[in-house]
């Protein structure tokens, strides 16, 4: 294992310490329990937006804390969901009196830990809501799986909802927006190499020189399928067709209802992309794939969208939701309307995403 770390045990903590020192104007880091929060938190009267998940996906989520995006992020160990006390303490630290929205990626661990945190925060008297992101079209059904993983769309949903929270949306309106944004995102990823979890010290899986994994998530887990390595255009075609051809997707999920202070099962449908839709297109590096290759993929994605009558309104290209040093990429299309587009364009000032300010 070759990494610029001191030890697997101290990696997450030292990395967070470095981030805090590098961006003292933007973020602070609290330890025991661990969470990253806005340097100017709490922002009074604003809904606090909080996310979190395992580490190893940087800049997500800690790098998205700041003006116009997250109020706090809770990093777990590498690829391990954070624990409920982290979210609970973060919520207490950053809430500004207007409630808290948890944005949760759909993984068994994240979901359960956030559920417990939600109950804790509610018991503490906090007004709390939670929305799930589950955009990975590589996972086909929701009945015979844990449901679709939350991947690339998470970044876009955090940006859009962060802008809305900054603009003063109340908790109910923000929750509705977050659910709508999440339902409009679709992603698919692939890997050229495995990553190496520091504590394990060896690659999670082995791939031959002529092979790739298609339909991967963001935790170094193997994908749906191992295939012969293909040219970038074929890969872009395969991923973008999976997204563009993905039919309506229905699932039942549990969401915390702040009005009744209870979990309710709701059935949600994500509508397929259709000719004439407007999207934000996101080409993401899994960590070890350089920017120049992402642009090769984007070139083809742009053609594919044009061919399907999908209008790319904005782009995001780079390593934003990563799997350590894995080589590979994911594509995300998020259907937007004027409201979401305006929120996308709104100023954001975080270590990982910044414009307009």
């Amino acid at each position, binding site marked *: 294992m070759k990494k610029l770390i001191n030890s697997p045990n101290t990696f997450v903590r030292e990395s967070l310490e470095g981030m805090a020192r590098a961006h003292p104007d933007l973020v602070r880091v609290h330890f025991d329990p661990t969470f990253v929060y806005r340097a100017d938190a709490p922002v009074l009267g604003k809904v606090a937006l909080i996310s979190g998940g395992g580490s190893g996906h940087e800049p997500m989520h800690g790098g998205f804390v700041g003006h116009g995006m997250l109020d706090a992020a809770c990093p777990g*160990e590498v*690829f391990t*969901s954070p*624990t409920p006390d982290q979210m609970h303490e973060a919520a207490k630290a950053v809430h500004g009196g207007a409630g808290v929205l948890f944005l949760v990626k759909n993984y068994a661990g994240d979901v359960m830990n956030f559920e*417990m945190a939600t109950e804790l925060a509610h018991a503490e008297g906090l007004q709390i809501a939670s929305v799930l992101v589950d955009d990975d079209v590589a996972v086909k059904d929701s009945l015979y*799986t844990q449901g679709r993983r939350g991947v690339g769309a998470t970044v876009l949903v955090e940006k859009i909802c962060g802008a809305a929270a900054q603009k003063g949306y109340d908790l109910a309106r923000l929750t509705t927006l977050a659910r709508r944004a999440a339902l409009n995102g679709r992603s698919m990823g692939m890997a050229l190499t495995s990553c190496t979890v520091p504590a394990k010290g060896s690659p999670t*899986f082995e791939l031959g020189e002529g092979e790739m994994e298609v339909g991967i*998530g963001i935790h*170094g*887990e193997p994908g749906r399928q191992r295939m012969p390595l293909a040219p970038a255009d074929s890969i872009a075609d395969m991923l973008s067709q999976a997204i563009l051809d993905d039919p309506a997707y229905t699932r039942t999920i549990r969401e915390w209802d702040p009005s009744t202070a209870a979990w309710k099962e709701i059935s949600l449908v994500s509508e397929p992309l259709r000719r004439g839709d407007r999207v934000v297109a996101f080409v993401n590096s899994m960590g070890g794939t350089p920017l120049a290759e992402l642009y090769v993929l984007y070139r083809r994605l742009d053609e594919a969208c044009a061919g399907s009558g999908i209008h790319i309104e904005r782009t995001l290209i780079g390593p934003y939701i990563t799997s350590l040093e894995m080589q590979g990429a994911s594509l995300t299309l998020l259907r937007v309307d004027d409201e979401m587009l305006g929120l996308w364009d709104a100023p954001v000032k975080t270590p990982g995403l910044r414009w307009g300010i």
Partner: protein
Amino acid sequence: MTDRDTLGRKEIAAWLELAADALQAARDALTELDAAIGDADHGFNMDRGFQKVRSLLPTLSQQDIGSMLKSVGMALIGSVGGAAGPLYGTGFLRAAAVTSGQQELSPEAVGSMLKAMLAGIVERGRATPGAKTMVDAMTPAVEAYDRAQTTGAGLCPALQAAVDAAEEGVRATIPMQATKGRASYLGERSIGHQDPGATSCALLLKALHSAVCRGRNA
């Protein structure tokens, strides 16, 4: 069955100590199992959690069993993370609820404790048997314990039956296609691999058996 056929606070402490030993020893093996169909962290997660539990043991010595198990549940919830943390954590919290105030557990009470633990895991994770999870080790174990109990077996034989059933349950996860947890994303590719959570579950039960029954004749 004799008067001594009970599970006391000392045995609970020994269980947790032996579980911490076992999970430390199995850390890399569990992680390898998780690498195949998950994200290569289950061994670290469980080890981290039970080392945390081990560090609490001195503070638990004066507590009743319910309080001990509650501390364990809270420690696991606060330190394991991932899927396993809330699942085992909730399991121990439910076990604590049915052993609250107890200094000693009868074989029946041990059965209730195990049942409560399983119920907590299922309540939290909503997995049914056959989904290729820890439930596939815990469910047959609880059933086997019960069966042994109702046929009048003592604590140790019943625990031995539970361990055997759990280990059988672990092996049974190999041909399963996962429908819960991270392995479910693999679809058919999850077939042929042993579930890491089921494996750690069997280790926990084995530690319980050892804690209670070493030095006793089963």
